[in-house]
């Protein structure tokens, strides 16, 4: 595989978890809830997915466990923020802390009971017959895990649903005017809870992807801030799906280029921390250049119903 194909393929590979978690968070933010605990949800997905895979050997069970773990923690978030109306940002930090503690404790408990941990992925790359044999395009686009193709369908589905259906209209309206939705007979809390659970499922799946399809391992700090990048990407994409996709691909490309250049002799003299810092620095600069506060849902982060102080 030549350099351009390698970089393009790695771009997609790195963008998948960002896109997966980002789609869920985007839907949740459109309904007016912001969950900065996405990082923790992804980490929990990593742990649940990897541990289940190591114990059972079943890929489907691993993915299911990761999604379930994400949904459960997101349910806790919804309970505290939507039903009990606590501050969403601070609850998100608590969720991160909780996820860090839970995963580290669970990992300590089972680590020694796992037999072999190396290279046990049951997931195989699905080469689409015919298309995957095309030169350059084949290996780049049509030799990925099933989850990646499913993500493509999910993106298409969410895009269509948000834009063209009544449910999508409600989801979008919830973020700007929950009062109006309530007046129109929409159960605001149920819809928001649903969106948050969807975001939890997506983040859990993204975690499973990281642990069982990308690295084949688990470590307590393995998400390394990707969940926070997801939050930035949603803002970066101005709460639209095409914007999110563009942002995620940009970051995937950054990651792929970093991998490519790290292998070169010249780059070995640059400490790896410089490469690790890059995505955060670029995100911050991009947000600064974009003047990003505009365009978000008007009631983002505000509990409903609002208090009259």
């Amino acid at each position, binding site marked *: 595989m030549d350099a351009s194909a390698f970089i393009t393929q790695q771009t997609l590979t790195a963008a998948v978890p960002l896109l997966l978690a980002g789609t869920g968070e985007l839907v949740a933010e459109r309904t007016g809830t912001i969950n*900065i605990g996405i990082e923790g949800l992804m980490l929990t997905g990593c742990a649940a997915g990897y541990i289940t895979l190591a114990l059972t050997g079943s890929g489907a069970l691993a993915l299911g466990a990761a999604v379930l773990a994400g949904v459960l923690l997101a349910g*806790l978030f919804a309970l*505290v923020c939507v039903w*009990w*109306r*606590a*501050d969403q*940002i*601070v*609850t998100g*930090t*608590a*969720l*991160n*802390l*909780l*996820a*860090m*503690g*839970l995963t*580290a*404790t669970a990992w*300590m*408990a089972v680590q020694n009971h796992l037999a072999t941990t190396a290279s046990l992925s049951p997931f195989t790359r699905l080469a689409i017959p015919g298309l995957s044999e095309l030169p350059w395009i084949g290996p780049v686009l049509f030799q990925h895990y099933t989850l990646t193709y499913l993500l493509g369908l999910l993106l298409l589905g969410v895009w269509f649903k948000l834009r063209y259906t009544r449910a999508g209209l409600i989801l979008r309206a919830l973020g700007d005017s929950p009062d109006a939705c309530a007046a129109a007979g929409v159960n605001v809390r149920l819809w928001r809870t649903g969106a948050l659970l969807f975001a939890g499922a997506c983040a859990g799946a993204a975690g499973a992807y990281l642990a069982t399809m990308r690295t084949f391992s688990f470590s*307590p*700090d393995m998400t390394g*801030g990707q969940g*926070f990048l997801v*939050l*930035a990407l949603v*803002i970066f994409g101005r709460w639209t799906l095409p914007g999110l996709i563009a942002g995620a691909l940009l970051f995937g490309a950054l990651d792929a280029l970093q991998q490519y250049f790290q292998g070169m002799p010249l780059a070995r003299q640059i*400490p790896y*921390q*410089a490469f*690790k*810092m890059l995505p*955060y*620095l670029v*995100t*911050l600069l991009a*947000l*600064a*250049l974009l*003047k*990003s*506060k*505009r365009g978000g849902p008007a009631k983002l982060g505000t509990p409903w119903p609002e*208090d*009259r*102080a």
Partner: protein
Amino acid sequence: MGKYLQTLILPLIVITLCLLVVLAGLALLGYPPVAIVTSWCEGAFGSPRALAAALVKFCPLLLSGLAAGVAFRCGVLNIGVEGQAILGSIGFVALLTLGMPTAPGWIALPLGLGFAILCGGLWAMLAAGLDRWRQVPVVLSTILLNFIALHLLGLLLQGPLRSPLTTAPHSAVLPTFQRLPLLMTNTSLHIGVVVVVIIALVAWLIQSRTTLGFELKACGLNPNAAAVAGMPVARRQVTVLLLSGGFAGLAGGIQVAGVSFFLSEAPTNYGYAGIAVALLGRLHPLGILLAALFFGVLDQGVASLEKDPALRIPHDLTDIVKGVIIMAMLVGSAWLLRRQLQARE
């Protein structure tokens, strides 16, 4: 006095419930609850050394709690205490090891800690500037700055700050005369503990007795009303980030000067811990003092659970406790506030 008693009830209920829930969870996992409690008490209170260690843990917890508390009270969600503390420790070590390696402690320590405050404050100023001029939300910029600070630390430990004497990426170890003096021999109890308690008392005085303290509180409670009353809301939000970052920077500096004596990449989690301390202390300096004391004792006890060969409970348990306490305090205070509002109507 009745007001203070009422303020204490919620945190006490929350602490009791959370500890019971965590203990029940551990019991379900098969750990013996009685053994956990006795081992924990032994580790936290069992000896003067243990108590001293708890007080040493209390020190950065108090400072990061003040950092988060002062910002939250003013309505500025500074999630970047972690990064600001890292910058503080970098500033402290850089000044002492590169700038004045032979200066006596009574000159080097105040200057170094002052520089740590400055570095932490300026790092927070980046977020304030990005918010004011480029409309980047403080929540997001402070989180991103945490990661930038973390990798900056790694970068510096590979380069200018790295000690030539070690193979691991560490900074040079502070000489004995540049460390914080000990209060008790044979323990780790350093003088910083007294300093941070004085700082908390001063913070309380400023908050309750000065115009600045009143304005900060007003901006947090209702920025629109504060603006109508003629308060410079935007400027106060910058002030509060500077203060918050300063507290955080001092936390990072004091930890190096009194406990670790060199810089490494070991994670500290001051940011999240500070939020737990601030909320449990209900954003009040004296409450934060008590909350930091509680978490210091808790952390010290849990650290001994990990070392107990019969239990081997990972110290990450305190993260779970902190996360649950944050959520419970949020729900509890939101409920109290609404009850007060209803009572007024």
